């Protein structure tokens, strides 16, 4: 079976319910990275301000850590490849600027404030944003420290400070629970093979792993969970596996795999129904409808299922090669549906 790796936890409710959207995060990071890099390289002496250099290097590390499929889904894969090369050529020059920014003691002081606010039962929505910001700040700093190590110029003081921050985080994992859905989304951006590619970069993701562990423990302690919202997972659970016996004409009582999605406005629906993987069933069909009507506006529109592209035909259906979907699943793609030139994400809903 496909191992999603340590960064994706299907047991966690928000992940299982498909509430997270790692593509949104990657889209945001890449947009900001390209924007900032263009601005900094257009400066006459290419000397970005410390904050800009810091943010750029942090984003560079975070995007390097990402699953390539998510970067491709932004439509800016080639731009990222080019920018990454440009960034690598400037790392050594910009690192001294960037290393002036991180302030572990400041982070620890603010983390203490967050802990106090949690103890005082501060407004949950504010705690969530605050915890997310602190986590992102720590991540930025760790990614800049990683870049410095990679360039052969580790910053000992920063490393020592970050070790204290990391120790605090591990003792106060529950303080970050208000941002638990973000943590799950963040984890889903990380390529599962990261430790094999760059152990140092993988170390920056360790905090995500320990937070996910803690979230799972917490959820387990709360007892059996059920979905409180009418949203079903974008996970692949139950998707028909290739049959080694090639069905062998042996009837098996297997159920159908089905998923349903709804357009952002709620007016249109898409339904996927797939039977067991048998010879001759090499396509998986998604049928689009507006109530009982064929949505004419969708005919001819491109559609992506788990990153695989098809076109909606005159009958309101789009066919996807089963093998391509299996490969997408193996690559860690969520079973997400995006529709139209704008790749609008449709929401998975409970299949009734």
């Amino acid at each position, binding site marked *: 079976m496909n191992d999603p790796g340590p960064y994706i936890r299907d047991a966690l*409710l*928000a992940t299982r*319910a498909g*509430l*997270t*959207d790692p593509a*949104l*995060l990657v*889209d*945001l990071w*890449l*947009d*900001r990275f390209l*924007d*900032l890099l263009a*601005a*900094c390289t*257009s400066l006459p002496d290419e000397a970005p*301000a410390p*904050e*800009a250099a*810091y*943010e750029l290097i942090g984003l560079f590390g975070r995007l390097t850590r990402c699953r390539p499929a998510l970067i491709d*889904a*932004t*439509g*800016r894969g080639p731009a990222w490849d080019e920018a990454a090369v440009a960034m690598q050529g400037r790392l050594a020059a910009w690192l001294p600027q960037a290393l002036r920014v991180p302030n572990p003691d400041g982070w620890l002081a603010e983390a203490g404030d967050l802990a106090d606010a949690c103890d005082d039962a501060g407004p*949950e*929505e*504010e705690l*969530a*944003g*605050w915890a*997310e*910001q602190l986590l992102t700040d720590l991540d930025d700093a760790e990614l800049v420290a990683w870049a410095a190590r990679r360039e052969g110029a580790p910053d000992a003081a920063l490393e020592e400070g970050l070790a204290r921050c990391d120790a605090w985080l591990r003792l106060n994992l529950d303080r970050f*629970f208000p*941002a*638990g*859905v*973000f943590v*799950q*989304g963040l984890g889903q951006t990380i390529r599962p093979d990261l430790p094999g590619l760059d152990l140092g970069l993988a170390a920056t993701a360790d905090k995500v792993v320990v937070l996910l562990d803690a*979230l799972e423990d917490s*959820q387990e302690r709360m007892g059996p*969970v059920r*979905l*409180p*919202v009418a*949203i079903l997972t974008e996970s692949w659970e139950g998707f028909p596996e290739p049959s080694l016996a090639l069905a062998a004409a042996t009837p098996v009582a297997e159920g159908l795999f089905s998923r349903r999605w709804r*357009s*952002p*406005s*709620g007016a249109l629906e898409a339904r996927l129904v797939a039977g067991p993987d048998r010879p001759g069933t090499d396509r998986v069909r998604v049928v689009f409808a507006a109530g009982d009507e064929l949505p004419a506006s969708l005919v001819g529109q491109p559609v992506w299922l788990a990153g695989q592209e098809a076109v909606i035909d005159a009958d309101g259906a789009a066919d996807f090669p089963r093998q391509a979907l299996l490969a997408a699943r193996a690559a860690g793609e969520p079973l997400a549906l995006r529709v*139209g*030139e*704008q*790749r*609008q*994400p449709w*929401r998975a809903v409970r299949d009734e």
Partner: protein
Amino acid sequence: VAFFADTERALKHLGDHVLTGPECDAWVVVVPALLEHVDLASVTECERFSQNACVQGGAVAQAVLGLYRGAAEEAVTHAFFLGWHVTEGETTVALGTTGVLVMVAGAVVVTVFIPGQGCAEAVRNDRPRAGQLGRERGRMRRALPPHPASEPPGTEGYLYRRAFRPVVRFLKARYHDAYTLDGRIRWHWPLVARALPPLEDLTLPRWQEYRAQVGAGGTS
């Protein structure tokens, strides 16, 4: 769809968002005509205007309220034309091409604001702190992107860089805050991020195309 349940609530939101710093700065960019009625750069003037508007049942604020309502109606129209809206249960969240977000519960508008431009504390306290305009938590630690040769105020480019794009980035950044760990919706407004195109499809030229599609824009 009713524009708020009653005038009192409409005025409350007008005060919280249009007349409160720093969100008022973004409102000036989106609806420059507001400056014909109230000096949004002056905290004292905003406060006075807001108090008078409430005391007099909104009579003195009709023009400003009309502009607020007009911005909301335009946002909803654009959002539904472009598909930039989501519905979750009874609640619909729509984002217009200027960055104005409208939330409708049932058949009533419940809030209209420019995401990421305001200050939760300022709104909660009902009044901006004298002489000091708050900022979103966290923005202080973020490097603001340099804006090379930014367009002059009053142009479409300025509206895009000053209001629309920051709003879209903010919504995408805050999307995961929308949910609690057990899957409940903590707040609805970030959900609209999922209905928006990727940022590559929201560059200035593409945004201008969207604006043209809905019959808005002109000066570039």
